[in-house]
């Protein structure tokens, strides 16, 4: 087993330094929502038969959840993201009762030969499937809830240790306390999984999803993971409070796609982090189409020399959606490369927030870091905030950033109309072109197709 301890330690210090001060007094009502009473948590734990260390972890996180206030706009990270309308007490712990829910349709797996898949609805795994040929090579894939009971020693080093810190905020703590319906991919040293693995999480009306995704690729392993979310009811209330932890070992290669496609009534809070070791490669593509409000921390951490992380983002928002992304590209080791490209198109009154940071340690020489966020505003009332950032302590690095926000150019529209395209076709074509640069980086055809189609369907008639 590789140890991530040394480099990860610095990371956790970094995370802690950003914590809001722990409040001395509890504000009644906001801190112990109705659905999160202690006796409910006890019975949740009692049903799970988990190892001691995990129960202790959950209990500690549970206490932290109750101690921490809901973040508000007085915190820099939440300044642009107001969640006063969130009534946490409308939600509760994951329901262990079978509710007969069926999963919503998946977009990313269409026409793709898969090596395995999992389906969870409302934080409960319904289906797990893995090709025999893959399983016999030692690959573990399926329900994290079940696999953590079978392989506790294998998984303990990865859960809420180096990647996600449950003390980061109230949502991280809530997630760590009651994660359920999670998915695990573990690929042993040198094993290459040819076909993608697919993870689907669904929400029913009023449902909660505390899904945890853990991906571990040992040295030289390779895999592709396609993960997506969907709601059964487009407008129903829902809550996702999740986390993703990714460990890419030396010379390992992971392609990971994560499409957030909840209905427009869902709240989405997520802490996501990928750690890449020496000469490892992580390609991480996120798509964001859904949810009422999303607040996501997406971090990549390069801890071994020569590691690389490519981060791609495709966002499309409409109505009154508000999606907020906080990215960190952390260079701990020399000669690493991180390259982030986010592209968002916004219509109606929607809003996108991106705060990016490239942070380079003193000894991370020859770092090649880039971040860019482009936004296309399709309406007068949409708004995009892009705030890039660099904190560089090494002296021999190449780091830069860029951000743009613009509208669909009338001259482009007229040019296309002169070639027989209707106004709508012209706008759609221009929007598709806007995303092409990021699609060009995504080698997986089904993903490009699904994202392209979904965005095309959402673009309104502009007459």
């Amino acid at each position, binding site marked *: 087993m590789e140890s991530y301890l040394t480099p990860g330690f610095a990371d956790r210090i970094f995370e802690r330094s950003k914590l809001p001060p722990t409040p001395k007094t509890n504000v009644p009502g906001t801190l112990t929502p109705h659905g999160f009473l202690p006796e409910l948590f006890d019975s949740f734990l009692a049903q799970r038969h988990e190892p001691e260390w995990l129960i202790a972890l959950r209990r500690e996180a549970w206490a932290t959840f109750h101690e921490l206030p809901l973040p508000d706009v007085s915190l820099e990270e939440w300044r642009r993201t107001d969640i006063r309308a969130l009534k946490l007490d409308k939600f509760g712990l994951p329901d262990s009762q079978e509710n007969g829910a069926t999963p919503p349709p998946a977009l990313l797996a269409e026409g793709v030969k898969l090596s395995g898949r999992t389906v969870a609805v409302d934080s409960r795994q319904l289906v797990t499937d893995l090709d025999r040929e893959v399983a016999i090579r030692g690959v573990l894939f399926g329900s994290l809830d079940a696999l953590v009971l079978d392989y506790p020693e294998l998984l303990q080093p990865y859960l809420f240790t180096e990647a996600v810190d449950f003390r980061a905020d109230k949502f991280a703590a809530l997630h760590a306390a009651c994660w359920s319906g999670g998915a695990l991919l573990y690929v042993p040293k040198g094993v290459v999984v040819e076909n993608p693995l697919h993870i689907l999480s669904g929400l029913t009306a009023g449902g909660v999803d505390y899904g945890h995704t853990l991906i571990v690729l040992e040295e030289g392993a390779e895999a592709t993971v396609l993960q997506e979310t969907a709601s059964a009811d487009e407008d129903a209330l829902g809550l996702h409070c999740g986390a993703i932890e990714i460990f890419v070992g030396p010379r390992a290669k992971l392609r990971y796609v994560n499409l957030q496609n909840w209905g427009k009534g869902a709240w989405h809070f997520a802490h996501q982090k990928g750690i890449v070791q020496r000469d490892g490669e992580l390609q991480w593509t996120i798509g964001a189409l859904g949810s009422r409000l999303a607040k996501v921390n997406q971090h990549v951490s390069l801890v071994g020399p020569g590691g690389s992380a490519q981060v791609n983002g495709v966002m499309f928002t409409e109505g009154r959606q508000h999606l907020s992304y906080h990215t960190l590209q952390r260079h701990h080791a020399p000669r690493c490369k991180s390259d982030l490209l986010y592209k968002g198109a916004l219509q109606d009154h929607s809003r996108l927030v991106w705060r990016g940071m490239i942070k380079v340690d003193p000894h991370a020489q020859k770092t090649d870091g880039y971040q860019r966020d482009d936004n296309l505003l399709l309406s007068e009332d949409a708004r995009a905030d892009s705030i890039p950032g660099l904190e560089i302590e090494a002296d021999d690095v190449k780091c830069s950033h860029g951000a743009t926000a613009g509208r669909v150019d*009338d001259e482009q529209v007229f040019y296309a109309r002169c070639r027989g395209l209707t106004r709508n076709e012209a706008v759609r074509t221009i929007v598709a072109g806007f995303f092409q640069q990021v699609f060009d980086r995504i080698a997986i055809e089904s993903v490009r197709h699904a994202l392209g189609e979904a965005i095309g369907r959402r673009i309104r008639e502009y007459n």
Partner: protein
Amino acid sequence: MTDTLSISDLHVSVADKPILKGVSLTIHRGEIHALMGPNGSGKSTLGFAVLGHPGYEVTSGRIELNGRDVLAMEPHERARAGLFLAFQRPVAIPGVRMADFLRHAASNIRNPQRKEGEELIPMRQFRKELTEKMDQLKIDSEFARRYVNEGFSGGEMKRAEILQMAMLRPKFAILDETDSGLDVDAVRLASQSIAEIGAREMGILIITHHEQLLEHNPPDFAHVILGGKIVETGGPELAAELHKRGYDRIRAAHPEIVEDEAALTAH
């Protein structure tokens, strides 16, 4: 009956400023017309007005295509009815591949009733045709994969406009300075290309400051525009004269327009 594009007494304003002040011009299919005039005289404005640019307001006059009221049509309907404008400054559409754009455009124009989302021209058939046309125009095949006008050199852009015209096969085309930005050889190639793709099967209005583009496309008519009005119409000899001697004789013959022009540019 031959197709006819007729423009009569056209007045066009841009941002409430009158630019065209009564332009009349009739083009039959099979004819080549040259339109010449000093910078700022309204040549491009005429092209934009014919295709229906929303920033160019027709305040009076008519444009008819075989008796159909063109002014009542949307730009895409005009294109589908067989009107084409090769832009003086083609517009880049980043991320949209030339081949995809043209396939979409050709599908719409060849099947004017096509609704968004309906079948496009089959990929194989389209590719074959595009490759043939690109060979004919000596355009590198890699061009089809590039994004529309993005990072094109001045010359490449103009050749791409000719390629689009070749693929869309309009009834009437307005070529707005398709020779500007081209080197001498490229102008000759463009002139040949226009002839080869069947200029004689269309009605063409060639806007140019030079003679070379007309070399392989001898105009049946030449028009001189000054201060938003066509002030003289003649045969090929008029184009040759303007090229040799400039607009002095014309200006001297129309002192009132020259005054207007001066007043306009003073603004």
